[in-house]
């Protein structure tokens, strides 16, 4: 199932794995906190033993659900991200529940970043950040591009600029 108004380009499929790893790490930290609280509850709560025994099981269920969500969601949200660079604009659509379609005119781009986190580096991916003089949209992020693709998009975006104030 693709989103109704998909643009021509999609993110690199490896971006899904990156998001899964990020999600798994977040889940691990969260369930560690939950595990500690469950353990404290198990040892100290003034409840009957059978009820206290429910706590570890509850922990397993909750953590399992979190992990399942963290592994499933990136694949869903990936399908809703698309982008396009044409003569005039950089356009990005994203969002599963809250959808948005952002258009940045190329003549308004001030400068660009290509940044790579450690996990992104492992998968040869990168995040492209486009800066404008706007306020809320002063920085527009597009993460999950293949590194060489991000560089190519950046070079393409920059080639247009230069003749005017560029803001």
């Amino acid at each position, binding site marked *: 199932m693709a989103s109704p*108004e998909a643009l021509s380009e999609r993110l690199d499929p490896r971006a899904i794995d990156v998001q899964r790893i990020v999600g798994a790490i977040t889940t691990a930290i969260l369930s560690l906190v939950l595990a500690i609280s469950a353990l404290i509850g198990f040892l100290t709560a003034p409840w009957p033993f059978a009820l206290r025994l429910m706590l570890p099981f509850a922990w397993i269920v909750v953590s399992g659900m979190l992990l399942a969500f963290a592994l499933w969601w990136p694949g869903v949200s990936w399908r809703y991200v698309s982008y396009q660079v044409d003569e*005039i*604009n950089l*356009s990005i659509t994203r*969002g599963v*529940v*809250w*959808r*948005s*379609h*952002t*258009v*940045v*005119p*190329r*003549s*308004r781009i001030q400068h660009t970043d290509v940044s790579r986190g450690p996990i992104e580096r492992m998968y040869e991916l990168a995040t492209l950040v486009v800066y*404008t*003089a*706007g*306020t*809320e*949209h002063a920085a*527009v992020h597009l993460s999950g591009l293949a590194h060489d693709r991000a560089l190519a998009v950046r070079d393409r975006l920059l080639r247009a600029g230069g*003749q*005017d*104030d*560029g*803001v």
Partner: protein
Amino acid sequence: MTVSDAAENRDGESQRLHPSSLLFGIGAVARRLLVPGLAILFFSRRQEPEVWVMVLFAPSAVLAVVRYWAYRYRLGAEELVIQDGLLTRNERHIPYARIQNIDLVQNPLQRLLGVAEARLETAAGGKPEAVIRVLSLEAIAVMRARIFVGQPPAPGEGEAAPERPHAILEVGFLDQVRYGVISNRGMVVVAAAIGVAWQFGPLGSWFEALQRQFFDLPLLRWGAPGVLAIIVLALIAATPFLWLLSIGLALVRLHGYSLRRDGENLRAEYGLFTRVTKTVPRHRIQRLVVRQSVMHRILGCASVVVDTAGGGSGEEGDPHGAARIEVVPIVPKDRIEPLLAELLPDLDLGAVAWSELAPRAPRRMFRQWIAVLAVLGGALAFAHPALALVAPLLAPLAWLETRARMKRTAWSVDKGYVCRRSGIFWRRLDLVRWSKIQVVQSRESPFDRRHRMASLVIDTAGAGAEGPLSIDLLDAGQARQALGQLATEAGRTAFRW
């Protein structure tokens, strides 16, 4: 320094501030230390309080002198260069082409000496990029000519033929009174007076007396409703008084307000004691808002806020509060259109094709009201079951509000402008020229999707404290079409600040 002297320094020589800067620098220090200094003088049990005051005052005063000695500015061919600092030398280059606007502030003493404080703003946010304190008026005239001469109007945004400077708007006595009533800033004066009295006067004892009086009031025997009645009565009694104060303040601040246009440059001048001159090139207007509150409508006028890319507009908390009011604080109703024609010459509001919100918008707005009222009713029912009836009783009002809002709200993406009209009691008209758009976005929440609606968000460089212009509850198809139109049209125009 005379005009010819300044003009001779064409490319280059560093210049100092006006010598009276020294005076104002030390004056500023003295003012900051006034309260602690007096406190020491009056309350110190030590033998020589003057010594302590000097200990407090001297280092700052020396610093002010050093700052004056170290400060140099230079009007280069393309840029303004400012050097300051003694230990940490700082050299700031501001290209003329990047300066968004120049404000001048003159307090009475500065006017006597023929000097002023100049603030230059570039598009980098926050505070002014250069506060030059203080220069002779001649030097400022030279600087201003230098900065704005090199800025030709953007293609299609200004007339080719040079025009003579002419007044666009003058705010007379009556309009100043209206502004005073509308802005209702009497509380500011009261707060300031209380502050001063607290520092120096016998306010503590008055306050105690007042308290004793207060507890004898017969209304107080009625308990909480009595207290409420006292507060309401006090507010009603205070209103005319506060209005009078506010009018007084307006008469002082807006004294002799005039807005002039000299080619591309708009220049607003006002102030009785502290004289402020704001200069904004017309093509630097990023977004323009016409506001009309209920009071504005009763008195038949409006205010116009001009957002430029430099810093905020109309922010409070400025040491010179007077420097930070709307460029056009008040304009009579019948002068709004001619004024807009001067500010945005390519705008043709009459020819703009307005669109309504989505047909299902009123239903959705009313549902939101119902949800709010249900929560309110539920909360009130906790206090007393009968109070829950308030919610259904308010429902017709909510329906009226929804209908009025639907009728008042309109938008358009047409003729080179994004326009939005909105508000029932606080009406406003937002105008953004396509060529000033930075980013366009359409957004759909799950509710939007269920009703086939979308929001259109227009981000500019001058969105100020309000954030981007967001037009909500649009028909999804129309929003998509507008987005496509803006994406091709806005992107094609070259942006000049």
